């Protein structure tokens, strides 16, 4: 599903955020991406969604060579990847329903189909009754669930989460992690960046560990 070969990322200011990263994550697998703050976790996820471009090496995601992907193709590629952000990135002037519907609206899905899929996604994250509310009226955990519903509403084969539980207490963050685990059991490939070791021990999934931009532990690649 994801294959990094000798990938480096140097930011325009000269900072080398990732150095010669190589790993493979098989289809339908799940892995944790860990490391100290500033280790390069967000940068790695941004390379997968093409928010940033690698400065060296090859990245293949979902059988697409990202280095060669033309600019015009980026939006269509992103529809195959669901992303969850620590700060949710919800639209505060739209209802929960409209927020979750956005990826479908963007890809031109019909009205009725949109309604059906949005409700299915909200049902999965346990927010079915709240579709008419505005995000601001929801708790942090609920807002993150809206973000998750939005990420999965398109049924992407790959799900990326960048510290999705960063601002939540232990119980809420366990619930969110269980949700990701569930999606993985449905067959979605999942990468979760976190610095909470607790989740790793709880879910017992392979770990990719970054330290100062280098991959110091690779529990995901086979062989």
């Amino acid at each position: 599903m994801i294959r990094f070969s000798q990938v480096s990322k140097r930011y325009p200011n000269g900072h080398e955020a990732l150095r010669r990263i190589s790993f493979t994550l098989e289809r339908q697998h799940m892995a944790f991406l860990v490391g100290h703050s500033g280790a390069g976790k967000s940068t790695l996820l941004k390379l997968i969604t093409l928010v940033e471009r690698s400065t060296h090496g090859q990245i293949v995601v979902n059988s697409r060579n990202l280095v060669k992907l033309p600019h015009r193709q980026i939006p269509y590629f992103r529809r195959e990847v669901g992303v969850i952000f620590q700060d949710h990135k919800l639209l505060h002037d739209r209802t929960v329903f409209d927020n979750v519907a956005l990826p479908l609206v963007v890809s031109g899905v019909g009205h009725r189909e949109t309604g059906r899929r949005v409700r299915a996604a909200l049902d999965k994250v346990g927010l079915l009754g709240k579709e008419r509310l505005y995000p601001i009226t929801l708790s942090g955990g609920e807002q993150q669930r809206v973000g998750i519903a939005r990420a999965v509403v398109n049924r992407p084969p790959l799900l990326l989460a960048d510290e999705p539980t960063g601002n939540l207490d232990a119980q809420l963050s366990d619930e969110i992690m269980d949700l990701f685990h569930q999606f993985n059991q449905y067959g979605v490939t999942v990468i979760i960046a976190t610095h909470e070791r607790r989740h790793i021990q709880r879910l017992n999934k392979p770990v990719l560990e970054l330290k100062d931009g280098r991959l110091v532990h690779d529990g995901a690649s086979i062989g």
Partner: protein
Amino acid sequence: MRAYLLRHAQVLLSSIGQLARMPGSTLMSVGVIGITLALPGLLYLLVANAERVSSEWHGGTHVSLFLRAGVTAEQAQSLATALVDRADVNQVRIVSSEQALAEFKELSGFGDALDALPANPLPTLLVIIPEPRYEQPELLEQLLVELRSLTAVELAQLDMEWVQRFHVILKLIRRALIVLSVLLALAVLLIVSNTIRLAILNRREEIEIIRLIGGTDRFIRRPFLYNGMLQGLLGAWMAIVLIALCVHLLRPPIQVLANLYGSAFRVAGLSLPESLIIVAIGVGLGWLASRWSVGRHLRAMQPT
């Protein structure tokens, strides 16, 4: 197809919402577009009306044909008859040298002094009034050249300089109208693109999110294009109202003036096609400005 139209209708609604959310800058830009479009519109009406007025002004134009000293009254008469037969001549009036002298005596007040002259010094004059449809500068010039070549003619003079001057002035105003229109169109482009810029900055976060979840630039652009076109539409509508108001205010005094000159002239306002052209220009400029503005800002927001 239905889904496509529905989607566009939704975008249209949301861009109306966008405009309504920034009523200050929207009103401002619609007002400025209105005034900016109304200016060349009014100037255009001025030229169009002036052209209609000047087309009523035949009768003013005539050729004075002074005959040579030796030409007799009979020769003058037969020349006049021959000239009337020309397609471009409507009427020929003969002013004999005697008549001319009498008229001159009366008008000048030199009666006694002129009586003392041994012979009548004035030539016979033919006043030629051209056919109205030949009253165009080039055709009149042609007539004049042909008249000058006649042996009996001493001097041919076209009395239309003021008409010509009037036409030159109208031509000048037309030229100025084009230059002014281009400048004002640029002004409209700047105004709309600035309002669009503010709208984009207002929704910067939303644009970034839409990009992250796979929205194409075309999708992001769409509501802003509608926004720009709506501004142009409202501005054009305002310009049409402003012009109608001006015509309404100016019509009575001009009517009074026309009546004084015995003319049936009536100030014309914008016709429906002319109004539609203003609307098309407004919408077109709005589209162009927003297209340009969004393109520029989306590129600046790269990479995300």
